[in-house]
């Protein structure tokens, strides 16, 4: 991990309130280990907002890293006002990665909302390694989607209102596809409510699932103990130093579904 002053290459709107920003950040790009990792962005040089903002890496390549972010509050609004050529200070890459798939398993990638950022990253890896897979992306409505619904290419969109793709949540396609394939592994990132249902489904059907979770972060590097989440079935971890809680920034953000306790 490193702090790098990165130049913005592009910054554009993809869908309603959803933006993509690409950075020229050679050192961090070189360090990225895989999908699931994130960076911490300093969105301002004054101290009104003392903390950085964590954002998943949505793709990375030779010298570049990109994020996909949703306008939420002041800091993400400020991100959207940046122009190509501006600089931002990044800290990263941070956190763990989705673990590699076995060659004989069938990955189902699930993204909800901006949780699709690390999922897209994982999809690029699948494509790159020619691994057959399915991707399911959920959102409220068509306005929030920027990916094409291509059931033939195993890309399924869902919307709460049916305005694009299937009406309903990601669970519709997930259940269908997971139960009609063998040796499935689920990789998911999205709102807690979604992860909770996926977890139940996976445990009920004894399906492997890796979930990327969110947590309010103070430092991103294990200093503040602020990002703790409940965790079960785990042993004392060297970095979190605790049994009951796990620090998402160092032990996560990706956890085995069986380890996470959603309360």
């Amino acid at each position: 991990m490193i702090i790098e002053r990165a130049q913005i290459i592009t910054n554009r709107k993809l869908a309603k309130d959803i933006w993509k920003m690409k950075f020229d950040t050679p050192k961090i790009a070189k360090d990225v280990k895989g999908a699931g990792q994130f960076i911490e962005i300093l969105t301002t040089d004054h101290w009104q907002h003392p903390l950085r903002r964590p954002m998943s890496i949505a793709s990375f390549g030779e010298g570049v890293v990109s994020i996909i972010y949703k306008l939420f509050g002041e800091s993400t609004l400020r991100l959207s006002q940046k122009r190509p050529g501006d600089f931002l200070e990044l800290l990263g890459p941070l956190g763990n990665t989705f673990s590699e798939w076995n060659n004989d398993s069938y990955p189902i990638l699930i993204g909800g909302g901006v949780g699709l950022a690390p999922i897209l990253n994982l999809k690029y890896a699948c494509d790159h390694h020619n691994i057959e897979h399915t991707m399911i992306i959920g959102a409220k409505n068509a306005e929030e989607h920027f990916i094409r619904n291509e059931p033939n290419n195993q890309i399924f969109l869902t919307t709460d209102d049916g305005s694009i793709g299937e009406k309903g949540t990601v669970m519709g396609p997930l259940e269908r596809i997971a139960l009609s394939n063998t040796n499935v592994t689920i990789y998911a990132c999205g709102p807690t409510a979604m992860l909770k249902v996926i977890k139940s489904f996976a445990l009920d059907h004894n399906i492997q699932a890796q979930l990327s979770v969110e947590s309010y972060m103070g430092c991103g590097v294990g200093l503040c103990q602020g990002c703790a989440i409940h965790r079960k079935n785990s042993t004392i971890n060297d970095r979190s130093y605790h049994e009951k809680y796990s620090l998402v920034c160092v032990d996560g953000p990706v956890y085995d579904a069986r380890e996470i306790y959603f309360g």
Partner: protein
Amino acid sequence: MAPFTMREKSILADLKVTIGKELFENPVWVASGTFGYGTEAPELVDVDRLGAIVTKSITRHPREGNPPPRIVETPSGMINSIGLANIGVEKYIKDLLPIYEGLSTKVIMNIAGTDIQEYIEIIEMMESVSSVLIGYEINISCPNVKKGGMEFGVDCDMTAILTEKLRDITERLIIMKLSPNVSDIVSIGVSAENAGADAVSAINTVVGMSINAKTGMSDIYTNYGGLSGPAIKPVGLAAVHKLHQKLEIPIIGIGGIVSGEDTAEYMLAGATAVQVGTANFRNPGITENIIDSLTLYLNESNRSSVTELIGKVHTYS
């Protein structure tokens, strides 16, 4: 992370400060609970450049800490309610002391207990093993635990008794860490001094709360947490200045420090050293920048030693 290179070392102002019998390379330390155990971010900060590391509060037994959510940002600050999550004294001795042997920076252990006996026990355990620790900072002011902590911090007599008992069992530095959540911080500082403390540090966090209007939820599991960051700098400066009017022992200034100028302000108010807390979360290497900019500040203001700042604020009245 390169050391200061703007001028020749030889003509740079002297940053050394003394507290009790200990000489520190510089007055810029990291605050307890904001730098982990000092081993977390080796890529981002050269800990050997720090004046001292104060490690996270250690209790007699390991503590899991409070349930999440534990932190939230507030205007120019943050609230935390970590609840003294820590590995406990045995593991501290076993896992961490050996690492500290390898550092050239000084290490101070911050200790929290639920009653006087617990503080004594911890220090006795620490004194019974050999270590490079140069002292103990006694947390009598954590707002985030129900039992213990705060009770001492608001009471002069308890502070005096605790300090006295600890003084009896160690020759290492004893630094009493004071709470700002009291009617009169000075009298508590005086009690600590009279009972034999080598120094006091001020301030710990200010009690605060945060609510999310959109969800109607409290942002912190325990509702109340400790406010830190630039927002509380004026509170820390006032505490240090007041303490300096009455105390002979050194004061270690804490609260909202993010720059060399902030450090200078605390020293002008009366601090002999400072601790940097929340700012580490933004940049774990920020203390190195602070040391550099403090040096620059001293050189530009023609001071040859950082000690020339201590208590030298000019006042109107």
